């Protein structure tokens, strides 16, 4: 155990790709926590999907020992956080476990939307903030300008900002000294009853559920009996330890320390992030404030391409959910797609990550249906239902009105692209709340319907701003609007998995865009196929996919019938990637691609 004065706990926060994980690498490496030969880039991004996409999804904690210039050795607990908005709750709960933040800003880019979002969270959590200007090795680095921006836009003092290259290691020593001298030591009473914050938990195939805790007061020891205060469940602690970043067992965790425990807990669901852990006997009276659980905001259907893989899909979803409390699922049946699951996610990236993992780690080909937000359907009888799936829209004669979730979106964009960004927001039914400038960058704040944003808003924003705009959002609440369910009919038959909720004023545009897209996505058949969009039986857009005119192999390869058979097998495999609706084969990717809008 370490005395409080020699502990520093901090989170590394930044906009996506500004170099948090790389900075963590250097801190870990320069303190000798990990041997040079075991180092690799973004060491903490251990999941395949993190390494492949070069992003952090899960927050990670590491304990490092640092011998400072004052001759004293300090214990530093760092938490590397994800930058993407879908995983913002990882950042917020991490912040509750520490006293300070390193605010990393890419000095070639400047302040971006998640820089702002994160810094406000850090301020809310009463953090001491040390700005770090990163990537000074790059020629485009402009520290003075960025420091000024930090002061102008965020309003914090940037005169002491540390100039760093997380790539070359320049400025790392200064960073470590600043952590020791500028961040506060934690507070807490060693002889008080145990009060530990449950920061995170995840499933490990060997050890069961691992619980990350921050000790506020008291001491936690191996072998003790603990209580989770929310559900009063009692557990026997069979292991405690710290991450360096590999797990290392220790005997006790004292106030101010961050570490893990295992207690033969089987499911992540048995632990509540934000819960307070105390001793079974002589426990504390009052739990810590706790935090709001992350709620899924985007829902879509996941169906196996090959219907016989439904049970495998169930299995994979259950396993993934074990480790991800923010991911929800329930069984769904679709007239068109058969059995599958309606799943809830924090955002589209979260959805993609889960889908990728199912396809790769469990080798199941999936059909993903249109993502939808949660609508509130107010019935004539005064009751309210949550609608996760447009296919479940109740009969209109019983519906009084609908409400949809709205967000507050903050967008930072260079002046040159502002016009296009405003147009995009306007097209998506946005209401402008604020527009300010910091130098040549504009900051716009919009009130937008979430359903206009979940799908392809981010891609569109990137494309209209040539990648220069950044975006962050928060849910603000529900509001009534004129929303309708739009159906898609292929060859005169409705395909439920293609139904979407749309605003009445946008229905025609959306409908036209969807039928045009589908016309390109569905391969030609031997007959012509009408594709229509309809609202309550009224057709609002129509396209016709003309019949296949020519598809025949001209040449006969001598007697090589084997070659023809191989071709047939290939075509059959292609057909397997499609689903049959009546007489029409629809490719699996059509269900998502049909929604992408080009403007």
């Amino acid at each position, binding site marked *: 155990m370490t005395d409080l004065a020699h502990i520093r706990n901090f989170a590394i926060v930044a906009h996506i790709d500004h170099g948090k994980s790389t900075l963590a690498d250097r801190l870990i490496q320069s303190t000798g926590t990990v041997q040079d030969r075991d180092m690799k880039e973004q060491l903490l991004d251990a999941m395949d999907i993190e390494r492949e996409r070069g992003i952090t999804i899960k927050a990670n904690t590491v304990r490092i020992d640092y011998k400072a210039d004052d001759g004293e050795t300090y214990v530093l607990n760092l938490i590397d956080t994800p930058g993407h908005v879908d995983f913002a709750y990882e950042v917020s709960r991490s912040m509750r476990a520490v006293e300070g933040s390193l605010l990393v800003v890419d000095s070639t880019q400047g302040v971006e939307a998640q820089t702002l979002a994160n810094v406000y969270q850090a301020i809310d959590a009463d953090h001491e903030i040390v700005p770090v200007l990163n990537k000074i090795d790059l020629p485009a680095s402009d520290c003075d300008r960025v420091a000024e921006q930090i002061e102008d836009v965020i309003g914090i003092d940037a005169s002491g900002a540390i100039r760093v290259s997380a790539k070359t290691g320049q400025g790392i020593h200064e960073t470590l000294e600043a952590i020791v001298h500028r961040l506060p030591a934690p507070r807490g009473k060693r002889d008080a009853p145990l009060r530990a914050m449950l920061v995170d938990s995840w499933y490990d195939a060997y050890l069961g559920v691992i619980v990350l805790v921050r000790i506020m007061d008291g001491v936690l020891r191996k072998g003790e009996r603990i209580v989770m205060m929310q559900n009063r469940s009692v557990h026997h602690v069979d292991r405690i330890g710290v991450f360096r970043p590999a797990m290392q067992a220790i005997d006790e965790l004292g106030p101010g320390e961050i570490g893990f425990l295992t207690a033969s807990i089987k499911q992540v669901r048995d632990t509540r992030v934000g819960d307070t852990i105390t001793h079974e006997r002589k426990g504390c009276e009052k739990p810590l404030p706790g935090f709001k659980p992350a709620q899924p905001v985007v829902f879509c259907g996941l169906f196996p391409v090959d219907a016989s893989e439904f049970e495998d899909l169930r299995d994979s979803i259950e396993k993934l959910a074990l480790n991800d409390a923010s991911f929800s699922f329930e069984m769904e049946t679709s007239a068109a797609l058969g059995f599958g699951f309606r799943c809830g996610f924090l955002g589209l990236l979260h959805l993609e990550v889960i889908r990728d993992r199912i396809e790769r780690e469990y080798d199941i080909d999936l059909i993903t249906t249109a993502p939808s937000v949660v609508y509130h359907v107010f019935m004539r009888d005064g009751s309210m239902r949550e609608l996760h799936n447009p296919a479940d829209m109740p009969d209109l004669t019983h519906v009084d009105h609908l409400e949809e979730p709205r967000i507050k979106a903050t967008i930072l964009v260079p002046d040159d692209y502002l016009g296009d960004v405003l147009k995009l927001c306007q097209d998506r039914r946005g209401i402008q709340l604020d527009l300010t400038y910091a130098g040549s960058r504009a900051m716009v704040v919009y009130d937008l319907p979430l359903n206009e944003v979940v799908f392809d808003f981010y891609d569109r924003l990137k494309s209209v701003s040539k990648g220069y705009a950044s975006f962050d959002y928060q849910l603000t609440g529900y509001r009534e609007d004129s929303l309708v369910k739009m159906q898609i009919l292929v060859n005169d038959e409705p395909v439920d998995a293609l139904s979407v909720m749309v605003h009445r004023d946008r229905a025609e545009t959306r409908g036209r865009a969807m039928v045009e897209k589908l016309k390109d996505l569905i391969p030609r*058949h*031997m*007959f012509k196929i009408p594709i229509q969009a309809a609202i309550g039986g009224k057709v609002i857009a129509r396209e016709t996919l003309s019949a*296949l*005119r*020519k*598809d*025949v*192999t*001209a*040449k*006969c*390869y*001598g*007697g*090589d*019938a*084997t070659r*023809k*058979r191989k*071709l*047939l097998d290939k*075509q*059959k495999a292609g*057909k397997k990637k499609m689903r049959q609706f009546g*007489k029409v084969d629809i490719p699996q990717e059509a269900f998502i691609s049909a929604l992408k809008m080009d403007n």
Partner: protein
Amino acid sequence: MADDRPVGGFGLYVHWPFCQAKCPYCDFNSHVAREIDQTAWARAYLSEIDRVAAELPGRILSTIYFGGGTPSLMPPDTVAAIIERARQHWPASNDMEVTIEANPGSVEAGRLAGYRDGGVNRVSMGIQALNDTDLRRLGRIHTVAEAHRALDIARNTFARVSFDLIYARQDQTLRQWRNELTQALSMAVDHLSLYQLTIEAGTAFGARHEAGKLRGLPGEDLAADMFDATQEICEASGFAAYEVSNHAASGAESRHNLIYWRCGDYVGIGPGAHGRITVGGRRLATESPLAPGRWLHHVGRGSGETVRTELTGREQAEEHVMMGLRIREGLDMARFAALNGAPFGSDRVGRLAELGMIEVADGRLAATRRGRTVLNAVIRDLLAD
């Protein structure tokens, strides 16, 4: 149930893998060689015939086909020796058809007469186009004038002559093709093969296409129009299609190729040659190595056949559909059912018939003209699991 009665005849295919130059569109097993040890090659073919004949005694040989590559580069003596050896092993049908493929550039009067004297009675000439610009774009090393000359020699040497054209070429218009085809019909003897240009992976055209540099190829609509025009024009001249790309005056169909399409038995010898033979009630697919040197080497060690697979009933049934629907006469539904273990699903047949893609009559199932233009889709539908 196995189909143990050889149906559709018995033929011998001989593959000659060399050409003077490699055409950029071609993915046949053809190679340009600096030197060819003619004696060794002749010996190898004969040895292969001996080997196969031992396994298939007593079959009545109805066709021999020398294909390539450019078999008109073979010494006439070799061709004659192969034909003779085949006749020694197998009783030949009275009117045995013996075809050789010839390139216009490699044909001189003497040579063709030499093949005729050795027993060849039909020639198929690769003319490909009737204008020099297009011949050059196709990478051909002969001119239209040479093609005319070669065709005249062929006409004077053989009663049965066919030639090949490739259409749907770069920048070709419908009108140009109609004119070219009309001209071709005026030159035709008794048979024409008219192939739409296919861009094959692994060829020079394939690579250029991949890189987006092969311009002016027709889209699906123009290609379909050209195919339709081909059917009309040929039919009007008495050269109706008896197969997707093959046209003949009545009775002048290539009997050898009909063996393939009727799923008969054929022996394939030479590099990359495929065969389908029925031995002891089992239907076997045979293959040989593609590389000429490797093939020679294997033959030297006893057998040029390196792959032999028994086809299941289902596989045979699939081949029966894929091959049989290419020809106008279609396929025998009872034979399909026997091979497949079950007849076609009546709903599938009914739906395709309703769409005008197939016709059923007298126990046979045939693709209509419309069906033949989208044959891959028809086959996919019929054979879907």
